[in-house]
């Protein structure tokens, strides 16, 4: 991992972020609906008040000027005030971000922890009953609409069995001092294991709902790449060396087979982060996705712009992580 390559990556980030900002800007500009009118709603407002509000929001300036103003401020990490919250956009986003990241990471871990073993098992027992079940299961996984599946889970585990909570992040008996914003970490830092368990309980259903499609995808990728790898000469050669089956599978096959899995996982994590407003809505999870969708509907321009920028940065960084993992796993590639 050379410094030069890192720098190159960072430089590549710039056109992507500019492009993303521009697209969001143009998209919002072309979208009918006036933030001032939405804000005022049914209330009475005089034209003077309206003009003043427009000025307060910075909407009186021409579009092009607003775009460059946004870029100039964004460079200094100033994303402006959220139209509705009376606070800086950065604060509002920062409050919601840890919940989204925590849920996504747990979903990712759940997905990896189930997808890789299942995918490997399905590949080495190709065409067995297990393989077929796993394949059908993974297809089911990608075919289930999340909002539907989530509500089914709530019905079963929360309403009928009453063993898991319906919604939210943690109960109200626990008061955990916020350090990182990640409840699983904060509870441990506070040494409150009961609260940790509780936070975990709240995470189970949303993490499963969110992680299921990813599990299915990763399982298919793992299985396919494992099958591909198992056909390679070096596996035959490893077997000819008289190595144990275990070693052939784990040391020789898996290390190569995981390369695509890891890449796909890194990319899919981006979609976990950005694609979970459905799960957030169903499980009342206080994450960013829901906020962004609301903000689109409310034409809360500064928040939408900042959030999309954040998503884009995350995406690029995740790709970066994927690249690093790729080098770790695949010595042929040097960054």
């Amino acid at each position, binding site marked *: 991992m050379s410094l030069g390559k890192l720098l190159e990556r960072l430089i590549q980030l710039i056109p992507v972020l500019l492009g993303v900002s521009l697209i969001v800007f143009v998209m919002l500009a072309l979208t009918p609906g006036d933030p001032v009118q939405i804000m005022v709603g049914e209330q009475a407002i005089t034209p003077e008040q309206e003009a003043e509000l427009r000025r307060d929001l910075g909407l009186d300036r021409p579009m092009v000027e607003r775009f460059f103003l946004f870029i100039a401020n964004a460079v200094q990490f100033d994303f402006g005030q959220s139209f509705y919250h009376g606070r800086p956009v950065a604060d509002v986003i920062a409050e919601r971000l840890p919940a989204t990241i925590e849920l996504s990471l747990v979903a990712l871990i759940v997905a990896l922890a189930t997808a890789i073993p299942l995918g490997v098992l399905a590949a080495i027992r190709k065409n067995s009953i297990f393989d077929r079940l796993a394949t059908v299961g993974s297809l089911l996984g990608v075919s289930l609409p999340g909002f539907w599946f989530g509500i089914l889970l709530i019905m079963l585990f929360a309403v009928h069995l009453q063993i898991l909570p319906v919604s939210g992040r943690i109960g109200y008996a626990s008061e955990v001092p916020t350090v990182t914003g990640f409840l699983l970490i904060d509870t441990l830092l506070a040494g409150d294991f009961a609260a940790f368990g509780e936070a975990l309980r709240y995470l189970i259903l949303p993490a499963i709902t969110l992680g299921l499609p990813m599990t299915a995808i990763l399982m298919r990728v793992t299985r396919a790449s494992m099958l591909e790898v198992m056909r390679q000469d070096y596996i*035959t050669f490893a*077997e000819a060396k*008289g190595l144990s089956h275990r070693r052939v599978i784990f040391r020789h096959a898996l290390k190569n087979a995981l390369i695509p899995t890891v890449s796909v996982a890194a990319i899919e994590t981006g979609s976990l982060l950005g694609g979970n407003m459905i799960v957030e809505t169903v499980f009342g999870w206080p994450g960013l996705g829901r906020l962004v969708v609301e903000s689109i509907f409310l034409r809360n321009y500064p928040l939408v712009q900042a959030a999309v920028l954040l998503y884009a940065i995350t995406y690029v960084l995740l790709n970066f992580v994927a690249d690093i993992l790729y080098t770790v796993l695949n010595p042929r590639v040097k960054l």
Partner: protein
Amino acid sequence: MTVLLEVSNLHTEFHARAGLVRAVDGVSLKVSRGECLGVVGESGSGKSVTFSSVMGLVRSPGQVTQGAIFFDGRNLRDLSREEMRAIRGRDIAMTMQDALTALNPALTVGEQLAEVLEAHDETLPTGRTARRTAIRDRSVEMLGLVGIPSPEARLRQYPHEFSGGMRQRIMIAIALACRPKLLIADEPTTALDVTIQAQVLELISDIRARLGMAVVLITHDLGVVAEHCDRVMVMYAGQVVEEGPTDQVIGAPCHPYTRGLLASIPRPALRGQPLTPIMGQVPDLVGLPPQCRFHSRCPLAQPQCLVEVPMRDAGPGRRSRCLRLEEMA
């Protein structure tokens, strides 16, 4: 010389989508200790599958269905998977056609060498550090043996950091790490430049002499066989069609297929004469009728060839699968 490997009436079949493929159809062969046997045939003749069967490495949907494989007095087909695994790499080793694909790209050369020793060498000390040192010393020794300069440093490198010839040597070093009694070298030179081919073959011959191991050299290059092998076995469409001492088979082939093979190689002695390729193609191995398999391409074919043809003695130590072998002398 005592017999090291004796295969009799081996059948290996593949359940392909088009039907049952008899990739190895009644092959019998012997390899003596220290001997070098050349196995010649076109792609699809069954020569590689025969020795995969010997090593117990036939993959599904393939299956050894019949026959005995005696190695060092034991029938390998009766062994458990674990016993078979213990023999692979320790007693019978194999090298593959292309070291680039045979070596795991994600592991260092050192690790790929060490793991064979780890798997088989019972003489290694048990203490962690001592064991590691011993393995390292052995690895260095093996790389030295196959002629890799500054072996210690190169153990930490990955296969892609070596040249083609070097990789081939590494693969051979890995195969030979446990001093096997039999080395199956599957097309060891096909993937190499001509200049390096000779070096690698010399290396194999040289080590064979030093370690006293037997070698099976699978190739489609009769020139290689002529130079390095004591005996040769020619395969066609899953069957052995001719076998015997190398010089005799090459000097006076007694199967039309062998003759065809020889006629298609450019040889200095025959300069000026046109090369004559064998016409036609290898038959589809699905649902073959019991008759001479070379019949469709054979210049000597006659109506009576449409029967099942057995192997017959064709002189001392020589056998051939041709009805008209007497006429060929």
